[in-house]
């Protein structure tokens, strides 16, 4: 186990548990703590069964020993409201925080777009934008790397069952944070995000639509090529990331219709929205871990 970096997952809900299962397969990450607030949480019980240290006392419950336990990376899968406090506490203990909430206090990270940049900044807190952001920003970036995108808009449609209480309470943070990510990472001058929750049974697989308005007439061939390449990049960590239709060109509008099926680790396959978050979060952590293992980066208190 000497060549793995130890990690803690804060939030033993669906996201945290799915992340745990993925992290256990990692070559460079070893999850050692699961942090919750409810002693009855099935997620904590499951983590304990898998041999992790657990606490129902929140981050406070892990703080006294996390340094001794060698935790250098934490994932926050709670909610935007408590994230800042969680992040401050673990940063004080010298651990990097990977933020899966839409709190967005650290720089955005969308792996195929700017993971290298985020890691090379040595940021002690990186934010994974939102599920809709992870699913769509790579495609906005795929268009904007070909030519100027004056406006990028995404519509994420998720099944009711995959939208947990955190997302529901945080729905404004979703739209705001995703819109900002479309601008900052996607490279659109202006971003807009829409989320639709659909209760149909059987649950629908996450659908995402990306609309870009280009400054000049779109270069159809170059954009199509760039989009297809970007989809392959994302498929490296989310194999079920699938182009359904498009790119459709209509004047200066470029529209791309996607479906995101998850791996089905803990979450059902239709919840591609959650899967792409956990997969992207883990991918980011692995990059940090590789830097730490290679001695190029030492997480430190700020």
């Amino acid at each position, binding site marked *: 186990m000497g060549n793995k970096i130890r990690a803690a997952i804060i939030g033993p809900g669906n996201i945290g548990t799915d992340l745990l299962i993925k992290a256990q397969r990692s070559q460079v990450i070893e999850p050692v703590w699961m942090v919750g607030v409810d002693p009855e949480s099935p997620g904590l019980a499951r983590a304990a069964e898998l041999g992790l240290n657990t606490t129902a006392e929140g981050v406070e419950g892990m703080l006294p020993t996390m340094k001794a336990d060698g935790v250098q990376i934490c994932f926050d899968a709670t909610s935007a409201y408590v994230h800042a406090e969680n992040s401050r506490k673990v940063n004080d203990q010298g651990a990097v925080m990977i933020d899966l909430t839409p709190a967005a206090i650290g720089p955005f990270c969308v792996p195929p777009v700017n993971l290298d940049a985020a890691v090379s900044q040595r940021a002690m807190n990186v934010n994974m934008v939102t599920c809709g952001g992870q699913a769509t920003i790579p495609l906005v970036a795929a268009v904007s790397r070909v030519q100027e995108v004056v*406006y990028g808009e995404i519509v994420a449609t998720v099944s009711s069952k995959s939208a947990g209480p955190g997302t529901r309470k945080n729905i404004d943070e979703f739209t705001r944070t995703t819109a900002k990510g479309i601008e900052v990472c996607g490279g659109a001058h202006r971003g807009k995000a829409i989320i639709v929750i659909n209760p149909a049974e059987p649950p629908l697989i996450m659908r995402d639509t990306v609309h870009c308005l280009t400054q000049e007439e779109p270069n159809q061939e170059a954009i199509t090529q760039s989009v297809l390449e970007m989809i392959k990049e994302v498929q490296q960590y989310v194999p079920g990331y699938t182009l359904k239709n498009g790119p459709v060109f209509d004047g200066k509008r470029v529209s791309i219709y996607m479906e995101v099926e998850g791996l089905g680790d803990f979450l059902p396959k239709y919840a591609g929205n959650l899967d792409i978050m956990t997969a992207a979060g883990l991918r980011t952590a692995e990059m940090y871990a590789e830097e730490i293992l290679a001695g190029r980066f030492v997480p430190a208190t700020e």
Partner: protein
Amino acid sequence: MDLQGKKVTVHDMCLRDGMHPKRHQITVDEMVTISKALDDAGVPLIEVTHGDGLGGASVNYGFPAASDEEYLTAVCKEMNNAKISALLLPGIGTVDHLKMAVDCGISTIRVATHCTEADVSEQHLTMAKSIDNLDTVGFLMMAHMIEAEDLVVQLKMMEDFGANCVYITDSAGYMLPDDVTARIALARAELKPETELGFHGHHNMAMGVANSIAAVAAGANRIDGSLAGLGAGAGNTPLEVFVAVCDRMGIETGIDTFKAMDIAEDLIVPMMDHMVRVDRDALTLGYAGVYSSFLLFAKRSAEKYNLSTRDILVELGRRRTVGGQEDMIEDLALDMAKAQGTLKT
């Protein structure tokens, strides 16, 4: 049915739902002219927003002729007695839009979610309730899709978040009067007595007026209508017709029926881009239970990809799409065109 002396607050939709058939191109001047005429006719409440609510300006739903802020600012200051409302769909608009609309002078905010997803309105209803004198309304769309018992659970959630009025919304114009009666009656029995109850109809099965009267009979006290029915699909409950029926039945709306008729005929009908009526495709919406504002999107995709609008709408209904999924329409049309071999893949 004796509804003599019953008081109903009629809420006009032509400057919000009416944005759909106008592709959100109603001008600020038209908004001002029409809202002043409505005010003069005694309409107590008028909704003014992008058809898809605050923040609806988008590729997905259409960019409007002016911003919500411009519309609301222009209209609010011209009202003598009428109050102005705005619509907000969480997932599209945010509490920032809500605050903006309050600053523009609205007195009612309506927070709309799909009928099973009331909990996404917590942020917005809680915030609205905290604003002094802001009439706070929860609005459950596509209410035909679930039974009365389930609907009441969701309505109560909105009541708990702070709504002083909740709506049962027949977004697809699918309901028949008995469907309305069952839902409104149970809601009236289960909600707090002081919580107001509303019904928003669409006329796709030509049931707008009948459904609205059924709602009043079952205990609703707010009814949405639109002059000349200007609204998505076959339009909303035609307001002037509803008011005339109320007159005959002795239901008190406080609206001058002849003035309402005149506005419908002289101002609204002439500005229609197409006759808003129960045509084949609008009827399909009601028949198949499809969100009314999908109509023009389906027509456009049908034309572009050489398909039948009705086929697209029926398939959207079969897939149980919900409000806001306009992006699904072109995607589906592309699939259908591929399947019939008219599109190269």
